[in-house]
């Protein structure tokens, strides 16, 4: 949307031009005839929606686009135009209230955005102008300005790097806030530009802004007075993106190419798609029912009115003649306006204020998550973060949990455990103590020197020291400590390791540190040569010739280095599956055992291989790499081809094992989630063995769990075609898990007892893509549904080797399956963003892999263990609260308006309101709104501790249990019952309207006031009955509301109001209170209306902390043996 707007705003005049020309430093260039300063947008970021001027019309327009608001507007307009029973004020005031509250809220949010924009836009930057550094506000930067940025600052706009203080004309950048990658990336200055930026005379020609972060094509023309203009090509490595942060570089200069809303970051900014909760859908369904009730009421009344009027003398008795205007009105038009009038009279049945209350409840309620100190993590000094409050109640409805493994289930805090060199195991004895539980079974643990040959050891350790992209943090120990917050480096606090390492993946740091423990220390990269200190404390230098970067497809990375002795070596490390095919087979067997054992123990394993390159080989590789790097088209593919070509026929030297520890309380959390009836799926990119052992460690798989594997390995077992085998396996598993399993009822009743055989399902990415996108000749959809059915019948599913997109695919598949279960995704990395966005509820962990997941999530928590409380306590309570809120709102409006409907039968269908206009207006705003709001914020029908201890309680609200039609019917019936009771109770009382002890009679307004008094007291006391958790706030609002009602009624009836046309309620309330009969009937009716609820409460199974002994006891029996109606509120 933003992009579209930009196109609208800026695209217009530049539509035809596909490149822009930028004059560096705004200096005219000799080559161009006329220097026309081109017009670009300024560097202002506008994320706000409104300005002061357009706020009112724009906001109103947007608000009335909501169907509910529009409906109320229509009602209001009908009241203004047509002669209706109630004054426009009665519906106009609540609507005005709603609109104002929403407008204030949106205005406030926009003000915050304005403020953020302002801060960004006014941020001081230094711009070089005519040789001087000038401080400017960020928004004043124009395209072509030369901007200075110092370390740890973010770039104010997209810059082409011209100059860096680093000697090698590079600078380091992290783009964590853009794409979540927290490693340092190297960017290069434009080659061969002059050092003196003042005299630089150049233009840059580049493409128009486009959102792809990794693409940039441009050319720089450098003009020198005495030479032909030089042309340099510019690529993404020259472009510094707005939002990225300068690291490890003192200062850089760059020329602004894209500014403001044209920066890549702004173009990438997109509002998250609105997620709607299941509760909202229920509300809309109920609304429809009530709309039907409303319309049918109006139709019934209109019809009866004309039937009744057709009788003699009823239409226009002599005492009640019509006005001339009425007589003149065409009969069908009159019918229509009558219909509208009835609609208006009964429209209170659809509560305007419910929307406001629901929104307020969600907004205010979400604060309890941010406030919860249990979510506070002392390590990162942060608590939970709520990005959307719309989904609070959805947290109580989760059926499927999709979790990432690395960084979510595990800490992503890598620790080097052991290595295996040439088939011999080396374990770091220091760390033994921390490794209790993981015992080493084969080979004695011993000193490094006693095993493989010394040469092999040193080769291996050198390989570890060289084959990585780790950078040494060039800073003193103090700064290192402070920079730990970035989460890039771990364990710096250990005094003996003062060296800080920065790497894109924590594995690499762990390995370098592992090598350090064995005596080889990586000292850093200087001038393209890597320094390592060997065991003898000698410094060895290696020229770094090439880095063959890691990518998830190859799953390995390599470096090509040249030692001082002139040897050219290639070191490669990577996943076993990607290394083994590329090394000699006889070496593999020795190491494979270790790798597999390590994997089953839950370690991350990497294999290390090397290869000596002959000068010829190197020349070929070097040329190939250079060519590929310079290629303008298909650069990636070409590079890949060269990589694959170089990384062959290596020799395997060893393997490493790195432990990724489980998150705190990961197993307890998973157990609780499963106990709560959620199915946990682990989606990971890691290899199967590692993931499987993590699952066992998290107790997702238990000893008794039968594992159904559907991986490449099992597919290739039979030696037949994969498709055939897949077909066979799927059918087999389906039979096992679905058909033979005892029939289980959906969700709630799914037994968690151990009697049933539990199944765990394992699938890998390759097989999944076979299932999801099979070759066209097979019956594809069948596979998918078979697969889904198997998955749904397993307690835990493990999907390994998944690409990010496949994660989302899985989530989507489950989300759209039958019954559309509520899904929750939890992850910490950029690779989890797709599934976080896809799931109903996305949870981000404030982990180490950048902030991307947190930013895209709906809720962010510091640790996995917090998920338990978030779902079991907060989610449960929120759901119960909002479900009760919704039901209660419909109920209280039903019994509010039903007497009014019934009254029509006794007033000649004349749309005479039963209640005074003030009561009609105030009922939902003042008299009954606060108690339910307080209830919906504070209610704890079960104590939080108890909820946490008893995960199974979560099952009771599964599948939207409190907003199903059953409970809805209960509330509706209750509302109807009470409405009937109110009306007819008072009607029988009024069979003799002489209710005072002085013989005086009551009129119609007294009638309405008595009904209304009963109504207000009943609905408030009904809520009081439902309240299980009485804080002083509940007491205050409940009794306060009632007191306010009484006070208001006295006040409203106590004065002749000069602005009112009719003094209908003058002393009506006071007179009512002077009548004993009125008192008695009010007490009677309140009690009678509440009787069903009290009865139900008695038969209800008691809950809460007090119910601990009761719940298992025989009272359960009592409840069962009685013909007890299922009470929907009995949560």
């Amino acid at each position: 949307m933003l992009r579209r707007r930009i196109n609208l705003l800026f695209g217009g005049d530049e539509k035809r031009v596909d490149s822009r020309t930028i004059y560096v430093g705004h200096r005219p260039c000799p080559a161009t005839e006329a220097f026309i300063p081109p017009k670009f947008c300024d560097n202002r970021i506008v994320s706000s929606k409104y300005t002061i001027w357009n706020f009112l019309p724009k906001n109103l327009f947007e608000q009335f686009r909501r169907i509910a608001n529009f409906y109320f507007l229509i009602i209001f307009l009908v009241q203004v135009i047509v002669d209706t029973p109630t004054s426009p004020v009665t519906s106009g005031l609540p609507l005005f209230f709603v609109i104002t509250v929403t407008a204030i809220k949106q205005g406030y949010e926009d003000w915050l955005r304005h403020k953020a924009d302002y801060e960004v836009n006014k941020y001081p930057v230094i711009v070089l102008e005519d040789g001087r550094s000038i401080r400017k506000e960020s928004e004043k930067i124009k395209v072509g300005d030369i901007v200075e940025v110092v370390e740890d600052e973010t770039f104010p706009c997209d810059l082409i790097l011209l100059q860096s203080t680093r000697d090698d004309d590079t600078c380091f950048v992290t783009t964590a806030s853009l794409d979540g990658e927290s490693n340092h990336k190297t960017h290069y200055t434009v080659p061969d530009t002059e050092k003196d930026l003042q005299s630089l005379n150049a233009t840059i020609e580049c493409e128009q802004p486009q959102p792809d972060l990794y693409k940039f094509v441009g050319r720089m023309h450098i003009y020198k007075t005495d030479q032909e203009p030089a042309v340099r090509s510019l690529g993404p490595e020259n472009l510094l993106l707005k939002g990225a942060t300068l690291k490890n570089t003192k200062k850089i200069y760059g020329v602004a190419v894209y500014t403001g809303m044209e920066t890549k970051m702004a173009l990438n900014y997109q509002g998250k798609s609105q997620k709607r909760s299941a509760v909202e859908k229920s509300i809309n369904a109920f609304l429809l029912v009530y709309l039907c009730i409303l319309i049918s009421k109006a139709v019934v009344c209109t019809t009866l009115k004309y039937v009744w009027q057709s009788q003699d003398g009823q239409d226009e008795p002599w005492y009640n003649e019509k006005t001339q205007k009425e007589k003149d009105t065409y009969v069908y038009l009159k019918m229509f306006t009558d219909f509208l009038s009835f609609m208006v009279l009964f429209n209170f049945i659809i509560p305007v204020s419910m929307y406001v209350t629901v929104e307020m409840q969600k907004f205010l309620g979400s604060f309890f998550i941010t406030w919860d100190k249990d979510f506070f993590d002392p390590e990162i000094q942060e608590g939970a973060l709520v990005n959307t409050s719309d989904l609070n109640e959805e947290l109580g409805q989760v059926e499927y949990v999709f979790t990432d493994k690395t960084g979510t289930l595990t800490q992503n805090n890598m620790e080097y455990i052991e290595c295996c060199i040439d088939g011999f195991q080396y374990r770091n004895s220091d760390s033994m103590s921390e490794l209790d539980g993981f015992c080493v079974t084969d080979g004695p643990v011993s000193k490094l020197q006693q095993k493989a040959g010394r040469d092999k050891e040193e080769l291996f350790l050198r390989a570890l020291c060289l084959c990585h992209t780790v950078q040494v943090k060039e800073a003193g120990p103090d700064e290192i400590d402070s920079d730990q917050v970035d989460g890039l480096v771990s364990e710096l606090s250990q005094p003996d390791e003062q060296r800080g390492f920065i790497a894109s993946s924590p594995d690499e740091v762990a390995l370098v540190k592992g090598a350090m423990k064995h005596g080889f220390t990586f000292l850093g990269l200087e001038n393209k040569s890597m320094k390592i200190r060997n065991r003898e404390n000698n410094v060895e230098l290696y020229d770094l010739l090439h880095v063959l970067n890691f990518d998830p497809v190859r799953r390995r990375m390599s470096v090509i280095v040249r030692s001082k002795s002139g040897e050219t070596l290639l070191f490669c490390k990577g996943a076993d599956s990607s290394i083994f095919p590329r090394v000699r087979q006889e070496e593999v067997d020795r190491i494979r055992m270790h790798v597999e054992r390590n994997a089953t123990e839950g370690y991350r394993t990497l294999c290390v291989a090397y290869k000596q390159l002959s000068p010829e080989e190197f020349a070929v590789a070097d040329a190939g790499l250079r060519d590929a790097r310079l290629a303008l088209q298909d650069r990636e593919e070409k590079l890949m081809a060269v990589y694959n070509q170089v990384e062959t026929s290596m020799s395997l030297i060893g393997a490493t094992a790195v432990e990724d520890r489980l998150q705190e309380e990961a197993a307890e959390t998973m157990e609780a989630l499963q106990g709560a009836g959620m199915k946990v799926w682990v989606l990971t990119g890691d290899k199967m063995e590692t993931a499987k052992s993590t699952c066992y460690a998290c107790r997702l798989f238990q000893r008794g769990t039968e594992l159904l594997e559907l991986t490449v390995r099992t597919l290739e077992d039979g030696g037949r075609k994969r498709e055939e085998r897949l077909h066979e396996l799927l059918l087999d598993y389906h039979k096992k898990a679905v058909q033979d399993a005892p029939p289980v009822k959906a969700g709630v009743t799914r037994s968690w007892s151990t009697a049933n055989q539990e199944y765990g399902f394992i699938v890998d990415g390759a097989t999944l893509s076979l299932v999801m996108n099979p070759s066209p000749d097979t019956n594809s959809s069948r596979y998918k549904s078979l697969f889904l059915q198997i998955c749904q019948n397993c307690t835990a599913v493990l999907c390994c080797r998944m690409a990010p997109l496949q994660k989302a695919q899985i989530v989507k598949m489950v989300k759209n399956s039958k019954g559309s279960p509520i899904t929750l995704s939890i992850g910490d990395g950029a690779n989890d963003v797709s599934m976080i966005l896809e799931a109903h509820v996305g949870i981000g962990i404030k982990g180490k892999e950048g902030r991307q997941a947190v930013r895209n999530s709906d809720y962010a928590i510091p640790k996995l263990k917090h998920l338990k409380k978030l779902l079991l306590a907060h989610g449960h309570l929120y759901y119960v609260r909002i479900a009760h809120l919704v039901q209660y709102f419909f109920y209280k409006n039903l019994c509010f308006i039903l007497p009014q409907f019934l009254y029509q039968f006794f007033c000649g269908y004349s749309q005479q309101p039963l209640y005074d206009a003030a009561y009609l207006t105030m009922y939902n705003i003042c008299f009954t709104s606060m108690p339910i709001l307080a209830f919906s914020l504070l209610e704890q029908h079960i104590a939080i501790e108890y909820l946490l201890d008893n995960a199974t309680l979560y099952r009771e609200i599964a599948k939207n249990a409190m907003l199903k039609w059953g409970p809805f019917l209960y509330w509706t019936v209750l509302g109807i019952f009470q409405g009937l009771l109110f009306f007819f109770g008072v009607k029988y009382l009024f069979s003799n309207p002489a209710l005072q002890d002085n013989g005086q009679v009551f009129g119609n307004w007294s009638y309405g006031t008595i009904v209304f008094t009963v109504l207000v007291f009943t609905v408030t006391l009904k809520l009081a009955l439902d309240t299980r958790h009485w804080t002083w706030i509940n007491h205050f609002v409940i009794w306060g509301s009632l007191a306010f009602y009484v006070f208001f009624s006295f006040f409203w009836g106590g004065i002749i109001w000069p602005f009112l046309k009719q003094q209908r309620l003058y002393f009506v309330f006071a007179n009512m209170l002077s009548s004993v009969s009125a008192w008695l009937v009010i007490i009677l009716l309140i009690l009678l209306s509440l009787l069903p609820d009290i009865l139900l409460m008695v038969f209800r199974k008691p809950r809460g902390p007090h119910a601990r002994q009761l719940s298992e006891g025989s009272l359960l029996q009592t409840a069962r043996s009685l013909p007890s109606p299922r009470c929907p509120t009995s949560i």
Partner: protein
Amino acid sequence: MMASSYTAKEEDGHHSGSAAAGGPGSSKSKKPDNTAFKQQRLPAWQPILTAGTVLPAFFVIGLIFIPIGIGLFVTSNNIREFEIDYTGVDTNSPCNRCSQTYSWNISCTCSVPFSLEQPFESNVFMYYGLSNFYQNHRRYVKSRDDSQLNGDKSSLTNPSKECEPYRISEKKPIAPCGAIANSLFNDTLELYYIYPNGSRTLIPLVKKGIAWWTDKHVKFRNPPGNNDNLTITFQDTTKPVNWHKPVYELDPNDPDNNGFINEDFIVWMRTAALPTFRKLYRIIQKNKDNMTPTLPRGNYSLEIAYNYPVRSFDGRKRMILSTISWMGGKNPFLGIAYITVGSVCFFLGVVLLIIHHKYGNRNNNADIPN
């Protein structure tokens, strides 16, 4: 949606420095306050309604309601009430002629004899009742001008639009305007006691104290001006179409009961809740000596100046004599309802007790909180 759609913009800022970017809450990175409210740990009373706690309530309700109900029922039964329909629908009823030859201009009188089987002690209230008369019709209810009735000068000469079509008559504003005032009940009822010897005596009827005190003294006011001569006050207005006499002649003998503050008028202006209603007409004060009943057993005659037509809309007119108790007029409903509800509660209590005793006695100690 409300919480923080603006947080997404946080990363735009250069201000975020190096570390600790994040939401607005976390940018301050403070540990959440450990207050009871924020941690949802406010001290709370957690009532549990179990069979054990509710059972006594049922018995208590039953024990309270049944006596009240009996009291109400007895009180209601002790109230004497006599009702007579004088509409004259029946051809041989005395008012049949009047009800047929109805015309606004001709006053017709008829007399309905009746006899009271039992004497009426203490004050007796005389009501007139109308049936099928929709005083609660919306068009009717709103057809009044309360500020005119409150004595507002400008409203007197310029009544509210709501009074249409009873607002202007003969180019003069109507006072009091509107359909309610226009249809003021104008039958005159007189009550005679017929002695066994045939002679009869008029029973004195008090016409004060029939309207709400606040209505009579605050809500209804005559326009300011010469209070003794309302004729002048109302000189620019005209009488409602259906009235025989202007408003200032409603009770010419008593200036305190004339004009807008005429109590019959005020009573009529309080619109009834249901199409069948009664309104207080007169009060028969109990005898001073307190020895003889107010209305002794015997024969009476109701003399009616039959002005008010109801047969056109199938209406009925009644005259009701009733004594009044502390609970108002006769109405067995309340007593029966209280007795019923009380019994039901009591019954439920017994049933619950049996159930509770039979199945739940092992849990008796469970009500003790842990």
